[in-house]
């Protein structure tokens, strides 16, 4: 079952009850997340040119050192959480990593001292908080129905999990801020400091692909 979705499986790391698994898909996602984390650590934030209202000249926006440090730390946490979410083969762990990425995303923009960015991150935060309920609720219902949360075991069961899958997808959509909940997140992307903003985008996109893989597997 897993071979038909995510390519050839290479093996698992039995690390207590947190099982990490390696397949073609998860290795590519893991490498991408790690490489981006390193690049984000190395990159100096860009200086943005912003057009002034009612004037002809431009203003140069610079990210200060104090702001840079906290944002870089949150971006690295976000990258590590994404890399973990790529490898884990446990539904509860995946939900946990997903919420951690959501929190780190708010953290990345919360150090920016601009009203509209803070407003957008507050609204995104509300959506992210609300969507943890369907996320963990779905994981709980799957556990109650099948008695396991391991993806390897879930792929073997014959019980229909359609309702739980739909709830899980809804929770993921809120947490990563895709189509219906997009408005707040698009505002967040306008903040200066490209590498950190890029981390928000990358983490949510990789998590969406991983969620689709999980939903097709179980």
């Amino acid at each position: 079952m897993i071979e038909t979705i995510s390519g050839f499986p290479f093996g698992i790391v039995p690390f207590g009850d947190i099982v990490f698994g390696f397949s073609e898909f998860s290795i590519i996602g893991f490498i991408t997340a790690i490489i981006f984390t390193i690049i984000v650590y190395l990159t100096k934030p860009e200086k943005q040119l912003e057009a002034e209202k009612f004037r002809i000249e431009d203003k140069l926006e610079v990210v200060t050192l104090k702001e840079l440090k906290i944002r870089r730390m949150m971006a690295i946490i976000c990258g590590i959480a994404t890399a973990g979410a790529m490898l884990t083969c446990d539904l509860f762990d995946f939900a946990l990593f997903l919420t951690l990425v959501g929190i780190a995303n708010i953290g990345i923009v919360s150090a920016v001292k601009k009203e509209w960015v803070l407003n957008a991150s507050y609204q995104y935060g509300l959506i992210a908080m609300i969507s943890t309920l369907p996320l963990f609720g779905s994981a709980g219902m799957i556990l109650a129905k099948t008695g396991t949360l391991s993806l390897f075991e879930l792929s073997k069961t014959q019980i229909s999990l359609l309702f739980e899958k739909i709830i899980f997808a809804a929770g993921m959509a809120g947490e990563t801020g895709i189509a219906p909940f997009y408005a707040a997140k698009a505002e967040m992307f306008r903040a200066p400091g490209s590498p950190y903003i890029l981390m928000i985008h990358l983490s949510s996109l990789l998590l969406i692909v991983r969620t689709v893989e999980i939903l097709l597997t179980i």
Partner: protein
Amino acid sequence: MDEERKYGLYSLIIGLLCIIGIILADGLISYVLYVIAVPSLLYGIGAFIIPKTRRKDAGKLPFRGY
């Protein structure tokens, strides 16, 4: 050495290391190294072919004059 060639040197070194890795390794890892090697070699070789910039104020954005 200006900044463009400095990064070019770095990526040339990465590309050459990847080629050594491709010759030594086999299986999936050689494909991963190939994917890393091609763009780094493209930039690394290109950075030493291109002429030195003749622009007066190098680095200013052409469309905004900054």
